[in-house]
């Protein structure tokens, strides 16, 4: 967390500036509660962005980092040092602890993102015919002993949205919402879901809108 704060506040990148002017949707430099209101539509990028894609956008447009470099390795290997994106994400999410989840649906692009996210959630594919909904659309189900949140209801969606990023004990590392999605999709036997892809953003929008009204509680501790 301290490393995240330092990374956020240190002048970095080819432009030698901090992320202090990064607009996460609540105005330049406003971190408090910003994570709780993402994904949202950003006119400057003409795109709906979740926190992690917005962070990349800021690091590229403000600090001058190369997008391809940032996207190449967003998640750390097990046991290795956390990536800058992970550390910055954990730090920013912590500034939203206690904030009420409020993912907007005012812009047409935000509503379209939700509709696609919902359709993706129910989309079955691959040799196992799995969709997100296969495991996450009924109450009180579990895989082995692991309880599965029903992500189609506010209670389950709030719990899932509120607790990421998380320190994942089984991984020995801080993991982000983007990582969580790619790991779910791996277990669905599908190809690799790309970091920052439209599908990830749309799924997070769907989850975030259903989680409306919950209180952020990240970074948390997860099995």
């Amino acid at each position, binding site marked *: 967390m301290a490393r995240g704060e330092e990374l956020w506040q240190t002048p970095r990148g080819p432009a030698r500036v901090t992320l202090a002017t990064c607009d996460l949707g609540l105005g330049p430099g406003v971190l408090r509660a910003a994570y709780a209101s993402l994904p949202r539509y950003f006119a400057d990028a003409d795109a709906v962005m979740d926190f992690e894609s917005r962070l990349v956008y800021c690091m590229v447009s403000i600090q001058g980092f190369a997008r391809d470099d940032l996207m190449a390795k967003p998640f750390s290997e097990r046991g290795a040092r956390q990536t800058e994106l992970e550390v910055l994400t954990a730090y920013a999410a912590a500034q939203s602890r206690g904030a009420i989840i409020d993912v907007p649906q005012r812009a047409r692009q935000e509503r379209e993102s939700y509709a696609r996210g919902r*359709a993706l959630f129910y989309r079955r594919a691959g040799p196992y015919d799995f969709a997100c909904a296969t495991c996450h659309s009924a109450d009180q189900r579990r895989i082995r002993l692991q309880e599965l949140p029903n992500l189609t209801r506010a209670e389950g969606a709030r719990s899932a949205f509120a607790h990421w990023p998380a320190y994942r004990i089984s991984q020995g590392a801080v993991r982000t919402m983007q990582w969580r999605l790619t790991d779910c999709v791996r277990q669905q036997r599908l190809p690799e*879901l790309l970091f920052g892809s439209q599908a990830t953003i749309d799924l997070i929008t769907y989850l975030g809108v259903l989680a409306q009204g919950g209180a952020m509680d990240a970074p948390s501790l997860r099995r």
Partner: protein
Amino acid sequence: MRTRQIVSLIVLALAGCATAHDEGVEAVDLAPIIQSSFRARGQAGLDRLKQTEMQRLCSSAQAHALPADQKQRLQRQALEGVRYPDDERWLGDWKRGEQIAQSGAGMQYSDKPEAPRGGNCYACHQLSAAEIAFGTIGPSLYRYLERNDRGVESMRRTWTQIWNSHAFNACSLMPRFGDAGILTPDQIRDLMALLFDPASPVNR
């Protein structure tokens, strides 16, 4: 009276359309997003994203409420694709079956393609009493022989269920272990033994 019935049928039909539209699952074109959001990795190629007709029809929050004709078609197609053991040898070794039921390995891009695959049955089903880490997405199969006899019809039904459960239940959540080539016929025989052998821990 007749007119009234027709009117109420039309109202019902329109209500059905309105629901489907509001839910918006079928109306959304995901093709461009699917195209841009994945990359092939290991054994998981991009071909896995292409949907079969069954997968498309079952990709809805209302999949359980598919029209009867579609449901019957999916079930008939599933049943027609089942390959049964030609020698009527239904049962293998329950000990190997238990290992297959325990293992969740197989077909993830993080798995070795040449390594033996599991059925991961315990992820969703209770089987042996000794294994308490079982999931609850599927029904308990503990004491299977209390609810199923060892006759050919019963074995055939269970084989079909493992091969392609959509034969009985269109849009079932259970993977098509035989139909999709996840498990080999020999592995399915071992799972059959886990369920049907009186000496199997499932039945003791």
